[in-house]
């Protein structure tokens, strides 16, 4: 046998490769059963990037169905509540070019909002309660309703069903607690006139810096 193989190197090579192919095929087959992945992990990842407003503006009943839609090749720019940031994040995840956000009619989609019920006008019909995907509206039949602001995602699904139009979307105001510094808006091409509001950058050049202290000493 060995002699036969040594005299026919081609046959020996084919045999060896064939055996290897069988062995690896076996391992791969075993692994595909043993380490089978349940569900589609990409859907989970996409769902994690979506803002979970469950607003349905993408045409799906909730964020997860849209995540499944994206996994099946749907456009990634149909989420106005997420804004361009979500589109960019999705593009990064899926390795595609980020298209512009398809905000439709809503121009100010980027501003976060919450629903507000004008409580004097509310007749207690519970229609908005049924419409809210977040259970963020509190109330009972013939009782005044109100919005739990912390739970409201601003999907505005409650605005349409209200028979007396007492629900409006109000932008969330920035408070001292939620405020944060803006990124400096500097473009190199044009000499920016923006003056950053931080004082450490107002430092003088080393030569200038010496001047006032010298003056002080002189004084």
């Amino acid at each position, binding site marked *: 046998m060995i002699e036969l193989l040594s005299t026919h190197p081609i046959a020996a090579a084919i045999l060896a490769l064939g055996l290897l192919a069988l062995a690896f095929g076996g391992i791969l087959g075993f692994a595909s059963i043993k380490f089978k992945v349940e569900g589609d992990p990409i859907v989970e990842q996409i*769902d994690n990037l*979506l*803002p*979970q*407003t*469950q607003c349905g503006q993408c045409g799906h009943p*909730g*964020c997860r169905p849209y995540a499944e839609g994206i996994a099946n090749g749907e456009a990634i720019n149909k989420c106005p509540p997420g804004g361009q940031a979500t589109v960019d994040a999705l593009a990064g995840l899926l390795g595609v070019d980020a298209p512009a956000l398809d905000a439709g009619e809503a121009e100010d989609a980027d501003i976060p909002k919450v629903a507000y019920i004008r409580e004097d006008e509310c007749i207690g019909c519970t229609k908005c309660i049924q419409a809210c*995907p*977040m*259970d*963020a509206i509190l109330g009972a039949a013939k009782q005044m309703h109100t919005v739990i602001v912390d*739970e409201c*995602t601003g999907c505005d699904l409650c605005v349409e069903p209200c028979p007396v139009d007492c629900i409006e979307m109000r932008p969330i105001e*920035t*408070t*001292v607690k*939620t*405020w*944060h*510094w*803006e*990124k*400096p808006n*500097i473009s*190199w091409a044009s*000499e*920016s*006139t923006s*003056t*950053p*509001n*931080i*004082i*450490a*950058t*107002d*430092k*003088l*050049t080393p030569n*200038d*810096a*010496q001047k*006032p*202290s010298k003056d*002080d000493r002189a004084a």
Partner: protein
Amino acid sequence: MTAANLQAGNPQLIATDEERTLFTIPGGVHPPENKQQSLNSPIVAAPLPGKVILPLSQHIGAPSLPIVRVGDHVLTGQLIAEGDGYVSLPVHASVSGTIVAIEEHPLPHASGLSDLCIIIESDGKDASIPMQERPDYRNQSAKSLLDIIREAGIAGMGGAGFPAAVKLNPRAGCSIEHLIINGTECEPYITADDILMQERAQDIVAGVELLSKILGEPKDVVIGIEDNKPEAIATMRETVKNTPIQVAVFPTKYPSGGEKQLIQILTGKEVPSGELPSSIGVVVQNVATAYACYRAVRYGEPFISRITTVVGEALAEQRNVEVRLGTPLSDLLTFNRVNEKKLSRLIMGGPMMGFALHSAEVPVVKTTNCLIAPTKKEMPPSPPALACIRCGLCAEACPASLLPQQLYWYARSEDHEKLESHHLFDCIECGACSFVCPSNIPLVQYYRSAKGKIKQQEIEKEKADRSRQRFEFRQERIARAEAEKEAKRKARQQAALEAKQKLAEAKAAAEQHSEATQQANSDDAITNALAKTQTKTTDPKEQQAKLERAVQSAEGRLQKASARLVESQQHTPDKNDKFAAQVKQAEVRLTDAKKKLNDFLTSTNFSTNTSGTSSTQTQEAQNEADKDKERLRLEKAINSAMNSIEKTQARLAEADDEKREKFEKQLNAAQERLQKAETKLAEFMNQLETTAAQEKLQTLQPATVDAQPEPDTPMDAASAAIARAQAKASARASMSEEEKLKEQIDGLTKRLSKAEEKLAAAIEEGSDKQEALSLGVEKLKIKLQQAQQQLEDA
């Protein structure tokens, strides 16, 4: 650049004081100090402001909750807002006067936003609440001292404004070895701590001793001062003589006064990323905080004023001012004779870490250590930023050993993951990198913006996760409700279908039946009637048998249960209660069964009487015999029950006192039941007798006629039985109404007394059955009265 020759990251020995080894921090810069101009005059008290604006969040943590109303008159030092939770502080009125508003007012904040403030209009008297002096504060426990500091509303006065009491009460498990008092004041322009150390060293040292006592006397208590404050150093050194407190002096370098940097300089230890200094056994407090704590503890002074450096070339007077909290900055500027024309802008804090204010109408708050009113020449607007030339000066200057340039690129492209992996959150925002940048890039502003965005994203992510959970839960709930509805609907459908089928069947049956009856009617109505009578006569027999069986089984159960009770009393006293309950149950069942039988028998009697046919005569005789037997059996049962009761009484006598009460109750109940059964039996007998007598009268004559051809013997036995029954019944009857009533009254009085006992017990326990019981007692009383009246009538 002196920082250039220092190894970044490695704390290096730079000097040995006579007492202490000092280390150095990486990086650092040397901006022009500009401290002299405000040190020319001593601390001056600012005039009393016309109105004060006191924000409800001057500290880190939850905003305070106002406890006053608009229109209230308050005294200086009066509490006007309390802390909301552990990490929060109260606010005190800094002048006496009237609360004119609690409303949104611009804050001294980089955003220029408004928040809730309490505004007091001063009455000019500055009438103070009585201050509680504590000359013996050294004898107080650490906890009560901490409470005093908390109640005084003291926030860290270095800049961040963390509640001092929280910082002085480190988490359990952190043993504090170093108490560091920060007198570094490394930022240019600011001299508030310097002048405080010069003028009020005694109180500061007393405060340091107080803080040391609160922290359980750490072995190392040190006041750290930069070497550009020779007078403060000399005063402090003089004051700390004969105390275990050290004064450490180290070379001036910005930002040595940062908390983490100072710890590194004085101990050589680095605070791990993302942790608090207490995790390595260090607590750092500002000298001004130590001073405020001492004043609060010793003299009971709440935190209502502070020393602020008011400086800048736009002012005629540059000095340190002791100012009431809430004083509008415009008042302070006027007091220092500002030249509005020269004033370019207003900066709160130092020139490195401070921020420009949007208006001069914002108040002085607990953290306001400096107010700079520079001219345009002194602090010109920043020159336009140029492109980064990758010189690396920022990395050399960074005191936290970060890579500012990398952070800058990632911040520009908003690559948040990379920023976090480059430890953006270890940046202390000291501004050293911005200061050295030759391209004037506002680096720190990029970092601050990126930090804010990351935090905001984290909050949004958290909210999105919560929203997802809520949405999923809602979907699940809706699906469940839908499924339940569906199930109900199906069940209803099924039921409707079945009902329809039944209806159809019944209809069909009814049709058939009606046809049959029509035929039958035409054929023979007589047989029908016969059948009816037959059913009438046969049915009662069966029912009687059934009832007899029930009585038998009840008796058997009673016997078994009483036997078990006896046994248990001998062997397992624990289960006595259970068995006694079983006996009771059995008795109840027995009486029920007997009652049913009685009812049934009387009814059959009447029915048979009314039928009055000759064919039922013999049957009746048999019935009579049966009844007799039944009566005997009942008597027997009652006897056996009495026996068992006697036995239980015997056992009761043997049982111990504790259980006696219980047993007595049970026994009473059993006796009552027995009595009832006996009266029932008596009634039964009476009825039986009367019916039998009537029957006799009605049936005797036809019976003699009809019975003649029949054999005599069964008739004789039957008549004998009847005679016996009659005898007995007459005996009973001779008892007369009077005796019966007496018996009834006896029973009633017994029941009444027991009920009253129960009621008393209920009242004692205060149970909610009281009302029901009292009602019962009243009813019983009424019954008793009625019975007595009847007796009298009789």
